[in-house]
């Protein structure tokens, strides 16, 4: 095993659906000799790509869960994390990014930068992940890597630098010219295993010189040594140039671009060289944890094997032999039999089996060092938990978890399905924080919540296949919110002084909407705020937090639709108490009562989730797409046309998006595709909210 941290890379591969990243991963495994034969994603041999381990993924040809696998390239240990491409599963992408030190952004040489690439790139920026780009499918008709490089610059604002130029394109793709070494590389043998390195063919000499000039220009902007030599017109040693590119890549100032065709086994080995040359090792990335014993202050984690252990559980999987927990060690060295402390559940546990994963096969190991990715068996935990040496009390920064926007009632068909369904739901909600489940106390139905229709459909499918749980599905429901639009005053007395110990509390003040501009450091609007302007002890200090608790209780369920109330500030400026009868409970109840009384006076409104929808399609269907958006109360933000394809960005209320994939498919002969994500909550039109309120009132009456 390689122990030197400089020789380790934790990388992810993310991209747009169908740009071939599973095929690419497959080839990487093959060249690193981890698999003995290449299987196609939708292969004829019925085996399927090694990384797509779940049966469902094999059937749909998509990757859902990100399997982590470990390979060796020229003495470097590379952990590869395969990530899903569909936007409904972005929590998986986000979680993988959290533990990565670098990434390969895969792009299709025909499709270029697509909407999903933009989403993925935004996520990479959020976690400051250095990346190299790989322009795949250069053997396809219409391949144009130069156009894709321009898109990387224009659409993603990346300082993209071509490290290679293609030798031939489309069906004439033979190899690449390496612009750092200025050599032509051809890929030969049955699976492109043999590299033939030659002088650059005469026909490409000028082109290569020009592109190398451009490369030097771009590298000069981030490295003074290269700039000096370039200005003096001197030769730049390969080593110095590579060092400069590496520096620029790690500081996110450069994005080296490689190209080839995974399917045709071209260009993969230079990409792997690029990964080890330019992407950072674990020591070059700053990682922090929060110290729970020190007011959650940040502490830097150091990749030192002698320091106490800090480990993050970033993914759970239900394997044949029990729960598998994927972990990354950030600090210290973990050995079999070590004792660890879970800072969320506050429980200690012993490390039993420690394994390294290779897609569906595994390998037992005895210890794992920092920077490494491994898996534990049979540990009771949730995804995102931090495990530490019992002497510490750190938690890794909480990961950004988007709020679920859609819910669905499910009903098991029989007793056996009910038991299995419970097991499945328990597992899924631990694996995926954006998938939530609860039992509605009023209807007694099990409700599942998630990020979109497809997201929930996949889990229902998995329930059926993996757990044999047959369920009936209700109508999908949108997660609305309630809000107020005006300030309103309250003055409420809670009194119960007949018999037994009495209760007395009076609270007065006002509630008001929190302005949209009033955002926290993350740019999110606050959902709730509590301000006490009590002077002179009208309410004793110990009861001021009681009012807060009461208000928080009251906003959980709004009176209009039964959804949470958001964007409200509760201000208490006066009150009264009774020396004997006032209590924590009395003030809580007073606050609840006050809120219930004042809410209808503050011009309440309904908020609905608005989705950012991106549709990609051949230009001929543009008109139809405009029409579908218009019919759905949508707002067209922009349309972008390029070479007979168009991308339309729009904002559409989620409630109108049900069944959109079917509508879009039938309208475009299956050629258009779309992605969507939650943009914000916004006020629903009066006609819609009146209808919703009416339905809610009727539903409650019928009970």
């Amino acid at each position, binding site marked *: 095993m390689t122990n030197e941290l400089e020789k380790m890379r934790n990388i992810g591969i993310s991209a747009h659906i169908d740009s071939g990243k599973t095929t690419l991963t497959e080839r990487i495994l093959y060249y690193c000799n981890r698999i003995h034969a290449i299987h196609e994603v939708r292969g004829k041999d019925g085996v399927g790509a090694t990384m797509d381990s779940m049966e469902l993924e094999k059937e749909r040809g998509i990757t859902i869960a990100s399997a982590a696998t470990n390979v060796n390239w020229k003495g470097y240990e590379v952990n590869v994390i395969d990530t899903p491409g569909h936007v409904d599963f972005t929590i998986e992408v986000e979680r993988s990014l959290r533990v990565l030190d670098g990434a390969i952004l895969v792009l299709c040489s025909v499709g270029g930068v697509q909407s999903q690439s933009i989403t993925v790139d935004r996520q990479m920026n959020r976690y400051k992940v250095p990346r190299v780009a790989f322009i795949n499918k250069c053997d396809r008709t219409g391949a144009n890597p130069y156009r894709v490089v*321009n*898109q990387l610059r*224009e*659409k993603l604002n990346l300082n993209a630098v071509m490290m290679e130029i293609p030798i031939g394109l489309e069906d004439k793709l033979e190899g690449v010219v390496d612009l750092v070494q200025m050599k032509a590389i051809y890929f030969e043998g049955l699976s492109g295993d043999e590299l033939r390195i030659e002088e650059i063919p005469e026909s490409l000499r000028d082109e290569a010189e020009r592109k190398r000039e451009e490369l030097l220009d771009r590298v000069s902007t981030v490295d003074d040594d290269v700039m000096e030599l370039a200005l003096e017109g001197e030769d730049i040693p390969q080593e110095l140039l590579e060092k400069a590119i590496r520096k620029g890549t790690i500081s996110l100032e450069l994005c080296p671009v490689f190209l080839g065709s995974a399917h045709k086994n071209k260009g993969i080995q230079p990409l792997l060289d690029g990964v080890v040359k330019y992407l950072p090792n674990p020591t070059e990335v700053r990682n922090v944890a929060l110290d729970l014993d020190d007011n959650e202050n940040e502490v830097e984690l150091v990749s030192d094997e002698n320091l106490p252990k800090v480990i993050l559980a970033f993914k759970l999987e239900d394997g044949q032999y029990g729960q598998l927990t994927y972990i990354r060690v950030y600090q210290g060295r973990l050995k079999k039999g070590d004792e660890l402390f879970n800072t969320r559940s506050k429980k200690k546990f012993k490390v039993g089996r420690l394994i390294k994963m290779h897609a569906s096969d595994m390998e037992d190991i005895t210890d794992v060092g920092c920077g490494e990715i491994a898996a534990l068996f049979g540990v009771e935990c949730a995804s995102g938990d931090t495990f530490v040496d019992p002497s510490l009390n750190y938690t890794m920064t909480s990961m950004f978890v988007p709020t679920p926007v859609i819910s669905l009632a499910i009903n098991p068909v029989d007793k056996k399905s009910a038991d299995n369904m419970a097991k499945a739901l328990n597992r899924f909600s631990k694996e995926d924080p954006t998938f939530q489940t609860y039992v509605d106390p009023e209807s007694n139905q099990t409700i599942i919540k998630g990020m979109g229709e497809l997201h929930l459909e996949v889990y229902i499918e998995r329930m059926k296949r993996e757990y044999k749980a047959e369920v009936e599905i209700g109508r999908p429901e949108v997660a609305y919110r309630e809000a107020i639009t005006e300030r309103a005053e309250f003055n409420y007395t809670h009194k119960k002084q007949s018999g037994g110990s009495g209760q007395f509390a009076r609270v007065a003040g006002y509630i008001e909407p929190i*302005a*949209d*501009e009033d955002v926290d450091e993350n740019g999110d609007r606050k959902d709730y705020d509590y301000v006490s302007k009590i002077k002179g002890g009208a309410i004793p200090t110990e009861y001021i937090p009681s009012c807060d608790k009461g208000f928080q209780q009251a906003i959980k369920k709004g009176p209009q639709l039964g959804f949470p109330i958001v964007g409200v500030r509760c201000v208490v400026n006066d009150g009264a108490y009774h020396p004997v009868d006032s209590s924590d409970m009395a003030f809580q109840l007073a606050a609840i009562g006050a809120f219930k009384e004042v809410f209808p006076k503050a011009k309440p409104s309904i908020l609905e989730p608005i989705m950012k929808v991106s549709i990609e399609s051949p*230009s001929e269907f*543009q*008109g*139809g797409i*405009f*029409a579908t*958006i*218009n019919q759905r109360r949508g*707002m*067209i*933000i*922009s*349309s*972008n*046309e*390029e*070479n007979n394809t168009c991308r339309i*960005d729009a904002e559409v209320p989620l409630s109108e998006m049900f069944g959109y994939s079917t509508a879009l498919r039938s309208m475009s002969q299956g050629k258009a595709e779309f992605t969507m994500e939650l943009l914000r909550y916004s006020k629903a039109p009066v006609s819609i909210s009146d209808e919703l309120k009416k339905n809610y009132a009727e539903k409650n009456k019928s009970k």
Partner: protein
Amino acid sequence: MQVSEIIKLSPIRVFEDVIDGGLGRGNVGVLASRRGVGKTACLVHLAIDKLLREEHVVHVSFNGNVEHVLNWYKEVFREISEYKSLDDAFDVYNTLRRNRVVMNFSQEDVSVDKILASLTTLIEQGSFKADAVLFDGYKLTLASADDVKKIKVFAEKMNVEIWCSVSPVRLNVEFDDYGIPNSMLPYVDSIDVLCGLKYNEGDSKVIMTVVKDGDKRIAKPTGVALDPKTMLVSK
């Protein structure tokens, strides 16, 4: 300040007075100058003025990044609303966004026919009731006289006001005293209003001059200039 007051006090009113109350529907106006003088800001200012009056605007761009265009609107709106301390700026901006569509063409050589077809699709099938269309940086100087005529016919048929910003792409172009490139001359007839923008070093402002208004071919100072800091139209 209220929206109505901002509209009334806008320097755009001064500009419109010079061309007899504005360009008007069915007409084509052109802003011409050297590169980097501030035409985009000027166009966006014109667009926001229309949007504030609850008109619908399509912004046609050719630069490959829609975000840039959207940011221009955000910036210019912020400039206007902060300078005049507009009431409920946040809500006003949200309504304004509803009435604007950015239509981008990443292709260098997209034809006028294609652009007009897409615009027609948006207006008819997307039920977007456009009042004005802005062509930001279309290479009109490379277009044929026929293309410009098509744009004019489109403006009349759809009953919309069209503003284009034009800068020459060729190097051997000469500019007259008002900033008009000579490569525009073949199409002047199809244009209703032609306005030149020129940087004046004396007061470091970009001077706007109307050189053609309807049938009249005389240079009329507009009394407005582009503020060098914000690039907005100012008195």
